[in-house]
């Protein structure tokens, strides 16, 4: 990719980047800002890119840092400092029988690679993510999208390690349930495309 092509190609990736930022920040203005900063960094970096995919990977990496910065700044504001203790890890005990066995055994989710290649899956995944309560989503995305260690997340958000574990547990269980119902439960809905 020639240097002069970068601004145009980067601009075309803008919707993808916005989608990524919006999901994590849940704030249109903050998402726009983060994406703008990432795009600016790409144009002024002087880097060359082997192709569009390489540019996207690079931009997402920059965007991740911008999002972490934003979370760090806003974590100091009291409004979102605390993650609510509105539950514990017994929320999903109903999935198990009294003897500790699954009441309803987890289903096979088929071929992961094929699912991930399906664009419609990403829409469903995004929708499930949006259904997570904001504070749970924040912790989960700091872990999985931004790649922070649990200890760092606790520290950034000033929450206890135990609380962090519980929140991550609930995020994963809820996402699993949502995908089971809205994607895998409709199989071969995804696979027929």
């Amino acid at each position, binding site marked *: 990719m020639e240097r002069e092509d970068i601004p145009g190609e980067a601009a*075309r*990736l803008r*919707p*993808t980047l916005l*989608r*990524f930022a919006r*999901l994590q920040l849940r704030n249109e203005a903050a998402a726009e800002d983060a994406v703008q900063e990432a795009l600016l960094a790409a144009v002024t970096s002087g880097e060359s890119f082997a192709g569009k*995919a390489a540019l*996207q990977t690079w931009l997402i990496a920059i965007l991740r840092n911008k999002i972490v910065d934003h979370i760090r700044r806003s974590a100091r504001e009291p409004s979102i400092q605390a993650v609510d203790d509105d539950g514990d*890890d017994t929320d999903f*005990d109903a999935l*198990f029988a009294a*003897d*500790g*066995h*699954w009441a309803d*055994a*987890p*289903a*096979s*989710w088929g071929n*992961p690679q094929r*699912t*991930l290649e399906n*664009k419609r*899956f*990403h829409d469903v*995944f*995004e929708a499930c993510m949006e259904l997570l309560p904001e504070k749970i989503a924040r912790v989960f*995305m700091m*872990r*999985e*999208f931004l790649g922070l260690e*649990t200890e760092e997340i606790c520290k950034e958000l000033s929450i206890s390690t135990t609380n962090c*574990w519980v929140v*991550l*547990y609930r995020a*994963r*269980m809820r*996402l*699993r349930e949502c*995908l089971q119902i809205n994607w895998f439960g409709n199989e071969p809905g995804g696979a027929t495309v």
Partner: protein
Amino acid sequence: MMNCHEAHKLVIQAQDTRLPFVRRIGLRFHLLICKACAAFERQMAFLRAACRSFPGGED
């Protein structure tokens, strides 16, 4: 011998930390003989893969 209820919590914990040796071995053993928990572990691995690949290519 751990049951599925305990095992599924350890599967999730193992996503975020290295389990202590005894629990790790206990979980491995459980997953060898329990298809349901093995499927659950694959689901959790898939969630991680889905996060890594989001938002996919361009629309």
